[in-house]
């Protein structure tokens, strides 16, 4: 609306200027005519004397009068003449009384009264020349025609202005409405999303314009938010489901001790057990959070270049002693200088989970092979053992959170180890595969190589 107003104002000012210029042009034209006519009469007087001037003035006056009103002397005509002697007394011409405001010099606009029967005043442009004998000659022209023309110009300008206004405002309203309609669509979608329906998307519209682009971007953003929300909901579901049972175990143990504990030794034992339980719960909780964050893809800093060979070497060195202590041989075969884009801490944790598992499940006398190769532009990290392995039909299951194949719960662990490894691999744009090592389990991780 504001723009429509500004537009109309500009057009109106423009038209005013046109009108003003046209009127000035018209007046200048009349003035030129008056000046050349009076100059011609003065020249006549100078060359042929007063007599000739008087005659000419009379003749011209008659012609003018005749042109306007051939029937009688009612109207002196468009152009009036008056030759005035001393005291502006009438000598010749179709104007009888000297207009009081007439002065020698440049043409002026003045009202002339004694014209026609109506006695109405008429606006005229008049030029007065003083002759060498002291007489005055007045030549004037009615502004009727010019005013009429000016009126025509004014009317047409006003019509044009009205049209411009109509087009401007109408177009503005139409454009505004179409914009508003589309914004309305976006805001309606936002409202529905706020009301809880995260699956809503902004309608794209028929035209492929900036709005469609905006809608696509908003939809991509909503897609991401929905994925994050789904991830968070899964975490809370899992936390609720899977922390509840260890928590109630912990609570039960404390309650029983409180009721049946006989000496400080009992209490002390229960408290130590409670602390151990709490620690285990925290580990589970942290692992859950890490997995959820990795899966949701919330990352603050991009991964940098990392030497996977050196990282494997270092983790292998950390676990070598523990493997040996468990009666296992840890064989390490690493291709040197395998670079990937990655997060050292996460990868070390993933590898440590795999080695932890192997040490836990492979009986003494077994072998663990840690290898890193570079294959078709991908880094392939494998941890293979000759332990009990995982039956083929259960391999999918162990990637589910909390699935442990030994239901006895006699060994430590929360069943999240492999899930975390998979989440780390996924977060690096890689993949994880469980394979049969004939006998034993082979875990293969693949990462895209850098460069």
């Amino acid at each position, binding site marked *: 609306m504001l723009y429509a107003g500004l537009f109309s104002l500009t057009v109106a000012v423009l038209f005013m200027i046109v009108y003003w210029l046209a009127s000035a042009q018209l007046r200048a034209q009349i003035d030129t005519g008056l000046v050349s006519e009076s100059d011609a009469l003065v020249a006549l007087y100078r060359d042929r004397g007063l007599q000739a001037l008087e005659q000419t003035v009379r003749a011209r006056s008659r012609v003018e009068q005749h042109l306007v009103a051939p029937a009688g002397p009612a109207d002196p005509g468009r152009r009036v003449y008056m030759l005035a002697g001393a005291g502006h007394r009438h000598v010749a011409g179709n104007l009888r009384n000297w207009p009081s405001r007439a002065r020698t010099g440049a043409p002026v606009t003045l009202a002339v009264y004694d014209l026609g029967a109506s006695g109405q005043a008429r606006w005229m442009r008049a030029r007065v020349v003083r002759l060498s004998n002291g007489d005055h000659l007045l030549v004037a022209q009615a502004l009727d025609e010019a005013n009429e023309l000016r009126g025509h110009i004014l009317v047409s300008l006003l019509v044009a202005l009205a049209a411009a206004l109509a087009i401007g405002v109408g177009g503005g309203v139409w454009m505004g409405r179409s914009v508003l309609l589309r914004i309305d669509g976006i805001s309606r979608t936002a409202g529905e999303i706020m009301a809880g329906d995260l699956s809503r998307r902004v309608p794209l519209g028929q035209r492929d314009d900036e709005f469609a682009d905006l809608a696509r971007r908003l939809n991509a953003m909503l897609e991401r938010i929905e994925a994050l929300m789904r991830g968070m909901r899964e975490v809370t579901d899992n936390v609720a489901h899977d922390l509840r049972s260890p928590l109630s175990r912990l609570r039960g143990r404390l309650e029983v001790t409180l009721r049946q504990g006989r000496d400080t030794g009992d209490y002390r034992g229960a408290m130590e057990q409670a*602390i151990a339980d*709490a620690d285990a719960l*925290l*580990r589970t909780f*942290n692992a859950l959070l*890490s997995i959820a*964050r990795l899966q949701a893809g919330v990352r*603050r*800093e991009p991964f940098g270049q990392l030497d996977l060979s050196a990282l494997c070497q*270092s983790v292998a*060195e*950390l*676990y070598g*002693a*523990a493997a*040996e*202590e468990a009666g296992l041989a840890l064989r390490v075969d690493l291709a040197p200088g395998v670079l990937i884009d990655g*997060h050292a*801490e*996460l990868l*070390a*944790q993933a590898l*440590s*989970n795999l080695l*932890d598992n192997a*040490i*836990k499940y492979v009986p003494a006398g077994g072998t663990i092979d840690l290898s890193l190769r570079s294959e078709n532009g991908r880094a392939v990290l494998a941890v293979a053992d000759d332990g009990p392995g995982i039956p083929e039909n259960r391999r999918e299951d162990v990637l589910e959170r909390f699935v442990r194949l030994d239901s006895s719960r006699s060994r*430590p*662990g929360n069943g999240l*180890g492999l899930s975390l490894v998979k989440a780390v691999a996924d977060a690096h744009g890689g993949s994880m595969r469980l394979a049969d090592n004939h006998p034993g389990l082979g875990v293969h991780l693949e990462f895209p190589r850098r460069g």
Partner: protein
Amino acid sequence: MRILLVEDDSEAATYLARGLGESGHLPESAADGCDGLARALAGDHDLVIVDRMLPRMDGLEIVRALRRAGRDVPVLVLSALGEVDDRVEGLRAGGDDYLVKPFSFAELLARLEALGRRAHSGLSVPVLAVSDLRLDRLGREVTRSGRKLSLQPREFRLLEYLMLNAGQVVTRTMLLENVWGYHFDPQTNVIDVHISRLRRKIDHGFRNSLLHTVRGAGYCLRES
């Protein structure tokens, strides 16, 4: 040590202050960030413990302000934010150590003592000695009673860290962080195995052992 404890959870603050007092330290508490910074700037503490999330002023902001003011008092940051990137952020702000809640009091105490010690003992001492055990940091040589011991490079770093903190309890996570550079929690006893191997090398065959296990906390290298 005079320890400033900036913690807004009053129950945790009371429990920590009591524990620190019982361990022979002089704790002083501040309940919000502004108060904590004012006390840290005005006082002459040996150590500052800041919680990361505090009312009125963020814990990391306190550390930055202290460092800007030219104070190099050791700062331990406590936080419920335990992701790797959170830890990096905490250390980048000028914290000397970063401990994730919840932690055992033994862990906190061990780290505080290591920090307080680091402030005094020069890290650049070329030869470390505990009883008749000597570690030459430049020559990378370890001897006990004059007899040369052959250690793997990682065992050397493990022993070096234990000797730098001789007489103090060192926890498993401290070892994992400082000797291996990892911050995750291994589920198997990897650190214990490394310690028992080191113990075999430095204590085996000698009358008194130097490397002790502190139950429920960690390890300690000291003359028994």
